[in-house]
């Protein structure tokens, strides 16, 4: 084997086995246990210590995390800017409401929500498969405005501008009107969604998405089915958003058109970009931002600050820190490790 004397920068030896490298650097057993323990703590703290109101907020964070994970796949990984992520949340929420108010079981609601989101996602994705950039953003914006118009003009079905009172979600023993159960009802699907996106990271489909985001030319040259990859990303995002909307409705007990309008879609984008468009942890940080920060600013008496800070952060983080806050934290931690 020829000795390679290429001028490779002298890098600190990463703990990697000599011969076959894994997909991701394998961490030592101690690190693995640390991560697992940390995760359990984060999950257990709200359940044990939070008062009812903040436990309810934690449940909403979990529901929103599924929507931001969907946008993480569509925008963060595949680079497709959609301004209709909240619209698909609305489709899921109202499907759940219409079926729930007619006495259908939660499982039936969930299946219907996934079906409606898939169909809605396909209807939007297929005709726009050649579009990207501004054109895709404009079409998704138009779909959102049409959805809002339909909601307002179907008052007897959806409650129109008045909004709709959604029966709290009851799945087996878990009744969403009790905050702890609401937290669990939001958390379990969110963990499944998180595992799915983490798993996506280790599949060829995940890599196709990243290549489509970074260079469609290279994607063509390696034989990646670009259109199919975009559609799969779009459908994943719309189903994730549909389920998130359904859970939001079931937990919040009330849905109305402004919850799913253009600004809601923009704030979902703010969340994903601030958290870190490509990182799963970033999607959760973004979801927490969307739910908790408005409450804080309202408590401070200046609700308008949420839009102000959101706008400023979206512009700044997108420009200066492409990997978002989580990315910054990781590189800071890495730098600390390197100097320590």
């Amino acid at each position, binding site marked *: 084997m020829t000795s390679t004397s290429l001028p490779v920068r002298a890098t600190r030896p990463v703990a990697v086995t000599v011969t076959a490298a894994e997909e991701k650097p394998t961490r030592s057993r101690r690190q693995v246990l640390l991560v697992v323990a940390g995760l359990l703590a984060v999950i257990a703290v709200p359940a044990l210590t939070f008062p009812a109101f903040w436990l309810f907020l934690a449940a909403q964070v979990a529901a929103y995390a599924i929507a931001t994970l969907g946008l993480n796949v569509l925008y963060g990984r595949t680079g497709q*800017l959609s301004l209709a992520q909240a619209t698909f949340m609305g489709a899921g929420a109202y499907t759940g409401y219409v079926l729930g108010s007619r006495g259908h079981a939660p499982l039936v609601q969930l299946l219907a929500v996934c079906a409606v989101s898939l169909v809605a996602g396909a209807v939007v994705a297929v005709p*726009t498969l050649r579009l990207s950039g501004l054109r895709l953003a404009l*079409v998704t914006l138009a779909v959102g405005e049409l959805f809002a118009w339909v909601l307002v003009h179907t008052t007897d079905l959806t409650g129109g501008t008045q909004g709709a009172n959604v029966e709290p979600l009851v799945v087996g023993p878990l009744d969403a009107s009790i905050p702890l159960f609401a937290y669990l009802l939001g958390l379990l699907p969110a963990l499944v969604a998180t595992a799915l996106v983490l798993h996506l990271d280790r599949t060829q489909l995940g890599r196709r998405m990243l290549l489509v985001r970074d260079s469609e030319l290279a994607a063509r040259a390696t034989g990646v089915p670009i259109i199919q990859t975009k559609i799969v990303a779009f459908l994943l995002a719309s189903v994730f958003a549909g389920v998130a909307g359904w859970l939001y409705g079931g937990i919040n007990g009330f849905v109305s058109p402004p919850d799913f309008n253009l600004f809601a879609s923009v704030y979902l984008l703010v969340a994903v970009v601030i958290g870190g468009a490509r990182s799963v942890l970033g999607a959760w940080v973004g979801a927490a931002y969307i739910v908790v920060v408005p409450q804080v600013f309202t408590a401070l008496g200046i609700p*308008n600050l949420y*839009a102000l800070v959101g706008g400023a*952060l*979206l512009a700044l983080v*997108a420009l200066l820190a492409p990997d978002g806050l989580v990315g910054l934290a990781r590189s800071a931690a890495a730098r600390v490790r390197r100097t320590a």
Partner: protein
Amino acid sequence: MDGLTQVLAGGITQGCLYALMLLGVLLVFQVSKVMSFAYGQVGMVAAFTAWAVNAAGVPVVLALVLGALVAVLLNAAIDVVAIRHIPSDRVGLDLVVTLGLFLLIAAVMQQLIDSNSHSFPALGADTQATVLGARISVNDAVVVGLAVVVVTGAWLVLSRTSLGTNLRACAEDADIAASTGINVRALRTGTWAVAGLLASVVAVAVASRVAVDAFYMTSVLVKVFIAGMIGGLDRFWPPLLAAVGLGVYESLAVATFGADAGVPAVFLLIIAVLAVVPKRFVLDTSEARA
């Protein structure tokens, strides 16, 4: 259908407003290859500032000039502070950054002034005459006249003057333009400033017909982008005519299907057009060249 001339007159006036604003969008796109979601808000800042200053006692004309000045400086600042720092390989980043500015500018204005909507001085919208069975106000006439004058003026500047050729050179290839001594940065920021002026004129005209608040220009901007997409952003006359056509189309839809029909009519159009119109109209990704 009685009042057809009224519907057409209203449509053409609205279309001229879209065309005037689209001219700003086209100039900016040619020079910076960027679409700014915050462009509507720049116009809103002009009108809202003018309203606030006027409400505080300053005469209307001075208030309008002040508002326009703020808008011009703001749009130029957006180019200098944000747009210049967008790395060319990050496709679509201009949308995300300007979406952030869209939210930021609205929130700042709500903080400085308020989040209510206010009625704007009529600027001649109430003094009307009936021409060919349609009620035309002074405001309408000014808008249409201004649109015709400004658009043809811009056409002449672009096609016949050295400034025009410099602009087009910048659009084609900034590096080559820079190599021939054109100060590309100054020209770009200057174009953004002119676009700011156009946006403030349109925003004031729209405010005089409707009302002014922090978000009233959003739907106008979306329709302007739609017209730009239909006509093609790298051309001149087709998109501007598409803008006027969109105004008439919208006005006809409202007249025939009632007030509620405006929103769906426009947005169904954009989905149909964008999904069908071939992609070559707009070079979205800068790496289109193999």
